Every structure is written in structure tokens, then in C-alpha cells.
């Protein structure tokens, strides 16, 4: 058995045919992590003891219930990696920040609770840009994560660790968070499938918030079908997230009716294709996908999303505004347990602090990296009196226009097809000195978050070299459309 050959679907078939045990598979994955992850840097912490323990228990359940448990629980015993801003009770959750170096989660995020009851096994927590602020995972306070296709290049971000865990075969599935492209862009750059669900489809309870009106938790996996399986498990209404919605997703989410899928109309937004700085291989890749759908008999037509060019400005006003408020709670007290040897010197700071304010300032000054500081300053600025109308209020109105563009386009088509990232994976260090250049790498994914829609990144087939992903954007809560269309692409040539 070579764990590199497996998808979730194939893994379950293997268990069904008793080709291997859960324990032997999980051990094999940890062997791979031990040999590969010192180079790739996907994981920040491993949960080996609990994972192997869960694996043994899963084998016992399998011995008694056999096929029955595999058929009724599609996530049973599936080894998963979790982004380090999602809480697993009793385990560290750093969000890639030194400020949370000693923080141990005291409860499970709703998605974790759901995956646990579905039988999934957690392998560890993955690296990310600090507080999910970044598009390359270079802003992590802990380590660099490298692209499995070229170790000199970034994996994308902010969920770079979760993308590499899957693309590097060190997990069969993983969870990330996507505020402006943080699942789809690293999926595209690493050749994995990544889904940003509709706003409200998945509970955000237990995810460390970046921008609450934009954040969603979503899955990575090697195939569209696997992504659909994870998504179906984690979705649903939750009393702990007032924005979560009660949507009854059907079986067609995982097993689409391709006769129905073939009737979907696909829109190509012209504004996404005349961007300066889009590389040739990406352009060709996306065109090959458009040709595929045309040749397969799909109705493909041009649509217009005229306010796309304002989405980036709009997003980089709204996100810092919300982030500056969300990150205020990280005051170095509530989420920073004092340890005997904390590198931050929390004890020292505490004993030297003149008063509470002084303690805040000392902790935040040392705990936050440059990018969170930059965005908190920016957010504080756009919200401050005198600038509120010019920036924040203006951005909320432009957000309304961006959303209306999609509403209008969806009167003509069912799904919109676009690139995910304007370029393939860039070199480590190439954009880290220029925040604006880094922000531009999310230009095709940001509008989807502003409008609250579902979007998926799927690898373009037949690319030699660095992966290219294409994006399918669906109507609200119509994940079944983009997942079905994605499976159609995967299954046909």
C-alpha cells in the first residue's frame, strides 16, 4: 500500500475489501509526514498519539460492523488535517501567531464536533499566515510552508498548510478558512480541490475570526467528490453561529445526476480575462476548460461583472475594518496562558506591566507580526471619524454593487467559470516585501466572498509543471451545481 495513491473514496474501498487496517494506514501517513514534512512544513503540530488511538478504535468498530459503518458514515476513519485557526478541544490553536503560542482550545469548533461524530481522525494542525492574513503562508510566525511541486515556491495562502497536507498526500482531506480566497488560491497553486461554501452554509463557531462577514470554513481534498463528502458532513445550522442557515443538502451533492448537470448554463465574465499580469499558462489552462465544456455540449456564454475592478479596494477596506475589531480580543490575557518558559516572556511582561493598558500594549507589540499590525492600523483608520464615510461606508455600497453584478449575471446563467489566481505559484520572497502585490493575487476570489457565494477551485487537467486551478462560482446554497459540474470535468476527457 502506498498512501500517496489514495482518495477518501478509494481508502473506504480498501477498508471494505480488508486490504489494510485503519491503524496501518494512519501509521503509514505518519511515516510519510516524518520523512516529507521537514521539507514541506505543512504541519505546525501533530496529534499522533490520539490519531493512532482513534485508528485502533476504528478498527474495532470495523471488525464488528464492517461494511455497514463504511456505507452509513462516509467520513469514517478518514485522516484529516485542520488549519490552526480551528479549535480542537485540548489541542493548541495558534492561528499562526506568537500571541497564541500557548493557547489550548477549551472546546471543539462545530465543524470538529461534526467530523468527530462522523468518525474522522485528526492528524494535526496546519500552518497558515498569521490570523489568516496573507496569500502565501509566508506570514506565519512559525515556519515556511513550501509548494510540493517546487520547494522554492509558495503554496499560496492563507490555508497553505492545509493545501500542502493534501497535495503532499499527508492527509486525505483537510479544513481551511476562506475570507478572500484562502482556500481556493492555495488549492489552485498546489493542485488540490478546495471549496469555499456559501456564507452561512457552515458554522464558523470555533474558528478564530478574521472578518466575520466574509469568513467561511471549507474543505480541501484530492477530488471534487471527496470535497463534497467533507462539505456535506460539516454543513448545517448551528445555534452557536447566528449566520448559519438551515439548508437541506441532498444526496446529489455527492452523487450528481449528470443529465441535470448537463443543462446548467455556464457564464464567462469578460472582466476576468483582460487583466494585466495574468500569465500565459493560466490563460491557456482556463481556455482548455472552457473548450471542454463547450465540446461536451454545455451552453457557455459571456456575462459581465462590471464592478469587478473595484472589488479589491472594497475588500481591503472591509476586511481590515472587521479584523481590527475581531483582533482586539487578543490582548495577551484571555488567550495567553502563562507558562514557565514562554519565548514571549509573558511572565516578565506581567510582572513589569504598570497597569492593564501597559500589559495590553506590551503583549500586542511583541505578539503581532507586521501584517496583522498593518491591517489593524488600516482598519482603525478607515473606521475613524472623518474617514468612515470616505472609506468604510463607501466600501459597503460598492460591496452592494459587486453583489448585484452576480445577481444580474445569475439571471442568465447558473454557474460562472473564472481563473482562481492570475499566476501559478510564485517564488518564496517574491511578493513578501510588497503587500499590495500580494493582495492582487486574490483578485479573482475576493468578489465571491463579498457576495457570499460558493466557489470551488479545481485543478486543470493536462498541465505539465506548476498546477493551475479554475474556479466555478455558484448561486447561493447551490454547491450541488458547482460540485456536479466539477465532477463532470473530472470524470470525462
Amino acid at each position: 500500500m502506498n498512501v500517496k495513491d489514495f482518495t477518501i473514496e478509494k481508502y473506504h474501498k480498501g477498508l471494505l475489501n480488508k486490504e489494510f487496517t485503519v491503524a496501518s494506514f494512519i501509521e503509514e501517513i505518519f511515516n510519510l509526514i516524518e520523512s516529507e514534512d521537514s521539507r514541506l512544513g505543512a504541519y505546525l503540530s501533530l496529534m499522533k498519539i490520539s490519531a493512532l488511538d482513534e485508528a485502533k478504535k476504528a478498527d474495532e468498530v470495523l471488525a464488528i460492523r464492517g461494511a455497514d459503518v463504511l456505507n452509513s458514515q462516509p467520513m469514517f476513519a478518514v485522516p484529516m488535517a485542520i488549519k490552526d485557526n480551528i479549535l480542537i478541544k485540548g489541542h493548541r490553536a495558534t492561528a499562526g501567531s506568537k500571541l497564541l503560542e500557548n493557547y489550548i482550545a477549551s472546546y471543539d469548533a462545530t465543524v470538529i464536533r461534526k467530523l468527530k461524530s462522523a468518525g474522522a481522525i485528526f492528524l494535526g494542525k496546519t500552518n497558515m499566515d498569521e490570523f489568516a492574513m496573507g496569500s502565501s503562508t509566508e506570514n506565519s510566525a512559525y515556519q515556511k510552508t513550501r509548494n510540493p511541486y517546487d520547494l522554492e515556491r509558495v503554496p499560496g495562502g492563507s490555508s497553505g498548510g492545509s493545501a500542502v497536507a493534501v497535495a503532499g498526500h499527508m492527509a486525505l482531506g483537510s479544513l481551511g478558512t476562506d475570507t478572500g480566497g484562502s482556500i481556493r488560491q492555495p488549492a489552485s497553486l498546489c493542485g488540490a480541490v478546495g471549496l469555499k461554501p456559501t456564507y452561512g452554509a457552515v458554522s464558523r463557531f470555533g474558528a478564530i475570526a478574521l472578518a466575520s462577514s466574509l469568513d467561511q470554513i471549507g474543505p480541501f481534498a484530492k477530488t471534487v467528490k471527496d470535497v463534497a463528502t467533507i462539505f456535506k458532513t460539516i454543513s448545517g445550522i448551528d445555534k452557536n453561529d447566528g449566520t448559519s442557515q438551515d439548508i437541506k443538502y441532498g444526496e446529489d451533492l455527492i452523487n450528481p445526476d449528470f443529465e441535470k448537470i448537463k443543462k446548467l448554463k455556464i457564464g464567462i465574465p469578460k472582466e476576468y480575462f483582460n487583466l494585466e499580469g495574468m500569465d500565459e499558462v493560466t490563460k491557456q489552462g482556463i481556455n482548455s476548460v472552457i473548450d471542454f465544456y463547450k465540446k461536451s455540449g454545455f451552453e457557455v456564454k459571456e456575462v459581465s461583472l462590471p464592478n469587478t475592478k473595484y472589488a479589491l479596494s472594497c475588500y481591503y477596506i472591509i476586511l481590515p475594518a472587521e479584523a481590527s475589531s475581531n483582533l482586539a480580543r487578543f490582548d495577551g490575557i484571555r488567550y495567553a496562558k502563562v507558562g514557565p518558559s514562554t519565548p514571549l516572556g509573558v511572565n516578565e511582561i506581567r510582572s513589569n506591566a504598570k497597569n492593564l493598558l501597559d500589559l495590553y500594549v506590551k503583549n500586542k507589540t511583541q505578539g503581532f507580526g507586521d501584517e496583522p499590525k498593518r491591517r489593524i492600523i488600516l482598519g482603525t483608520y478607515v473606521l475613524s471619524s472623518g474617514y468612515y464615510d470616505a472609506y468604510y461606508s463607501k466600501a459597503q455600497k460598492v460591496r452592494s454593487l459587486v453583489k448585484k453584478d452576480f445577481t444580474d449575471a445569475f439571471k442568465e446563467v447558473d454557474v460562472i467559470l473564472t481563473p482562481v489566481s492570475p499566476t501559478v505559484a510564485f517564488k518564496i520572497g517574491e511578493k513578501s516585501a510588497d503587500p499590495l502585490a500580494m493582495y492582487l493575487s486574490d483578485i479573482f476570489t475576493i468578489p465571491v466572498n463579498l457576495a457570499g457565494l460558493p466557489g470551488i477551485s479545481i485543478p486543470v487537467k493536462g498541465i505539465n509543471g506548476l498546477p493551475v486551478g479554475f474556479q466555478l462560482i455558484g448561486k447561493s446554497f447551490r454547491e450541488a451545481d458547482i460540485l456536479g459540474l466539477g465532477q463532470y470535468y473530472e470524470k470525462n476527457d
Partner: protein
Amino acid sequence: MSKLEKKDLEHLAKLSRFDIRPDQEERFLGDLGKILDYFNDLNSVDTSKVSPIFSGGDLKNVMREDETLPDNLDNILCVSEFPEKERGLLKVPPIFE
């Protein structure tokens, strides 16, 4: 729109509750200046007849009774994360000197 000056940056840092090191100031002013310039493209959008939205979805208020919930293990574990505590409450340095 106006240009961000050094004194603005210091004021914003104060509001944000952190210090910016003197060697970082120049770089931050440069970065933020470029980003704020980029935002100028929004001036060309006519939003006079547009209502703002605050989320991509349709949000409704979700209410519940204001009642104390019994202590459970999660609460106890949460308190155990406090750096200093007294009778189950968070202990912090004085607010006034």
C-alpha cells in the same frame, strides 16, 4: 483623500494598543500610503443611489433568553486558560495606577 502622516500612524497605533518601532515607521507609512492610494479608484464609482450591505448573505437577528447557563466542562477548561485567576474569575493588573 488625505495622506497618512507620522503623527497619524502614532495615533492609530495608540488606538490599536501596540507600539510601532521607529525602524518600522517609514516602511509602514510607505505601505499604507500605497494601499490608500489604491483605494482612490473607489472615488470613480457613483454610489449616490446605492444602499450599503453588511454581509453577502441575508442576515436576521437571532435572539435567545438572557439566562445564566450552568457551568460545564468547557467553561471550566476556559477558566483554566486564564493566566491568573481568583475564585474562577480572571485576575488582571490594576486599571488605574
